[in-house]
């Protein structure tokens, strides 16, 4: 026996099954990201005074990514509208744009991750701190045996706190130069990975989970664009529903970024 309302709306609820399903799924996604955002709030309020970073992320890249996703929301909508008016060619074009925009977003995101990955904070034996991007490590570099050198493009500071607010006038005017530091002078060397502090931890977790959602959404849209689009000839109405449902998910993922961007980049 066939399951009813897979395509047409149930008259008294006014919705078809998959659309209800995705809205329910999105409700749980709201709770998932809600949990993580509340973790962000608690960590930020609980941080020691002056130890919550500001201006660590590249606002320009963040803005570009925001615009990319906003644009992809529009192309997703247009792709669905093209299906509605039964214009398959336009659908193909607009969703190709969506996929390209999503991949560009992921590319920029990976560049940002890489930028953090090669950014090092070095606690020196004399109590000062060196901070900057890694230029090179000498071939024999071994921190435990205290041999070799490491070269960074950055600066020295007296106190870790100076590294926290990069929007401050002092940090803005600081000169970044190449410095070579001997392993013997280094107490601890750590990149800006998730374990660096609670900010990088929540940054990588939130944006990582969001990037996974982007990746998943892209895979679904690519499937519907490629092999999945064969359904168009057999059952265009059902296919249009699929585009609508995957579009709802995509809009949600965009919306999450609209919250992530100000929370992580702008404050």
């Amino acid at each position, binding site marked *: 026996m066939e399951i009813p309302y897979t395509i047409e709306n149930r008259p008294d609820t006014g919705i078809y099954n998959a659309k*209800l399903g995705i809205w329910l799924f999105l409700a749980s996604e709201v709770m998932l990201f809600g949990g993580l955002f509340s973790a962000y709030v608690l960590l930020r309020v609980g941080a020691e005074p002056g130890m919550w970073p500001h201006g660590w992320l590249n606002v320009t890249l963040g803005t570009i990514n925001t615009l990319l996703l906003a644009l992809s929301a529009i192309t997703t909508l247009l792709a669905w509208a093209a299906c509605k008016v039964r214009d398959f060619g336009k659908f193909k074009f607009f969703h190709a744009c969506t996929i390209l925009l999503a991949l560009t977003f992921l590319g920029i995101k990976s560049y940002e991750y890489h930028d953090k990955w090669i950014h090092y904070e070095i606690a020196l034996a004399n109590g000062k701190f060196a901070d900057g991007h890694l230029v090179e490590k000498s071939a024999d570099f071994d921190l435990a045996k205290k041999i070799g050198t490491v070269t960074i493009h950055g600066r020295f500071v007296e106190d870790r706190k100076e590294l926290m607010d990069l929007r401050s006038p002092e940090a803005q005017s600081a000169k970044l130069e190449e410095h070579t530091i001997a392993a013997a002078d280094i107490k601890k060397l750590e990149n800006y990975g998730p374990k660096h502090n609670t900010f990088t931890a929540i940054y990588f977790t939130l944006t990582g989970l969001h990037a996974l959602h982007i990746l998943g959404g892209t895979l679904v849209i690519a499937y519907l664009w490629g092999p999945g689009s064969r359904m168009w000839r057999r059952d265009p109405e059902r296919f249009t529903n699929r585009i609508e449902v995957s579009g709802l998910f995509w809009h949600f993922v965009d919306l999450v970024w609209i919250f992530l961007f100000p929370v992580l980049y702008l404050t």
Partner: protein
Amino acid sequence: MNDSVDQFPPYREPDDHHGHHESHEHHEPGFWSKHIFSTDHKVIGIQYGFTALCFMLFGFFLMLLMRWQIAHPGHAVPILGSLLHSIVGDMAPMAKDAAGQFTGYCISAELYNSFGAMHGTIMVFLGVVPLAFAAFGNYVVPLMIGAPDMTFPRINMASYHAFFLGGVVMLVSFFIPGGAAQAGWTSYSPLATTIPTNGQAFWLIGMVLLITSSLLGAVNFIATIIQLRAPGMTWMRMPFFVWAQFVTAFILLLAFPPLEAAGILQLMDNVAHTSFFLPTGLAVGGQLADRSGGGSPLLWQHLFWFLGHPEVYVLILPAMGIVGEVIANNTRKPLWGYKSLVYSVLFVGFLSFIVWAHHMYLTGMGQRIATFFQATTMIISVPSVIILTCMFLSLWGGSIRINTPMLFALGFLPMFGIGGLTGLPLGLAAADLYLHDTYYVIAHFHYVVAPGTIFALFAGVYFWFPKITGRKMNEFWGRVHFWCSFVFMNLVFMPMFAQGIKGMLRRMSDGAVNYSAARVPNAIDALPGSIMELNTWILWAAIALGLAQIPFIVNLFHSISYGEKVTSDNPWQATTLDWQTPTPPPHGNFAHAPHVLHGPYEYSAPGHATDFTPQNEPAEAPAAAPRPQPAH
């Protein structure tokens, strides 16, 4: 509203779609597609039920080993000792008697801790929830609302597979070096991160899979109940069980994701060495931990209990639903106060989201917050009491049929009553300060879940067994099972109230020997010998409780092939749609698309020839011969 539904027949004729890709299901499926990759809600329900019962038995054995350790700390475990040693190695070290003679293998404190954590996890997430929600819900809900299947059959299958995989990950963690998770089923940080075993990472990955599973299940249940109700099945004509499952699904949908978030964060702490839940200056083993710090242990507790408390209602609401069905059927009269039951269950579902911090009075979160949660906790007991009262009042004036399902349902009422009422002191901050983390807490929630929920689940198994197999389970052994379980459950859990009130702490791997008057005679609050002795009594009661399940297990499997055959599709003479199907229900469930004409509990309606009027039968028509049987 009814009219608009009636105008639209929900089913298309199956013939319309011959040649369609879904029509392959009309052919005889092979073993794999029938039993493993089935998308039929009934098969998935049975898969869930069978797996969950196995996990419950396994969790029970973990508990037996723990009870042995509590009663005889450091003594060799009889029968299972060498098996234990061969599985977990040095975590089950050699035990020696006073003369230094090797007597067998005993349970180390680490092993005890991992059994404690895994007993809780397995019983809650792999036993009771899958059985109460996924198994009964999958099998019964589509039948009760007159649907051909769940809305998303393939997602339903994926849900079971994620659940199964999660269970496998949990079981595998027993075999890794360092053993399974040891930080309790609540996995409080920083303990969960600092214990040197990867078991915690396995636990978290397993939990993420289980959460995914229940998320897929919850979406499916809600969509099914909203979209696939048969014509005429209006909201207020739905059986109470369906309402209970509906609210449960919403709780799972919205309460589980924050735990998933917490799980991801703790996994980051354990694997990527972040400090989400680790405070600044954390020392491990006398050494300053190599962590950035700055995290908040309290955050974990908030995120955990935001799920943890609604989870309690996930455990209890389906059970209440089952009990409601069984009671209405066996008192031969409508459930008393159907509407108040429905509104209560909705109210419970809503309130369950704002009571979580009553688990955290001792964390120093502040008196004002404690006051708020104390108030909501007291308020949530009101709808629970309304539900229980409605069930009790339903018995009044009924011509009660006593059979095994009814016995278990009747047993549920006082047992859940004890469990619920003993929870009130825990909801009040002042009393909780003393009782927190004692055996009183264990007794309280086990009364809710074990003789409460699990009794209701037994009632459900005995009740729906004839629909699933076409045979009844043996009545005599059913009663033996009930009475033995009833007596021994109480003998296991009642003494724990006394132990808790005397101050015996939970989670002590030596059964609190170090706090006994025999060990520290001069301490004024040392545990007296009478309290310590109860440990031995509980052990024997637990063993007897285990033996009392043998009649059930044998009865269950024996009755599948040899039970008394039912002569009608509706052996209990029930009104709900699940009994108006062929037995067992075929793929697609109904011989004729059902058309619902009245409410769920039309028992003993005046003027009707029989004392029950099925929901799809006209009220005035006399009960006809058995409904036409399709060939199957």
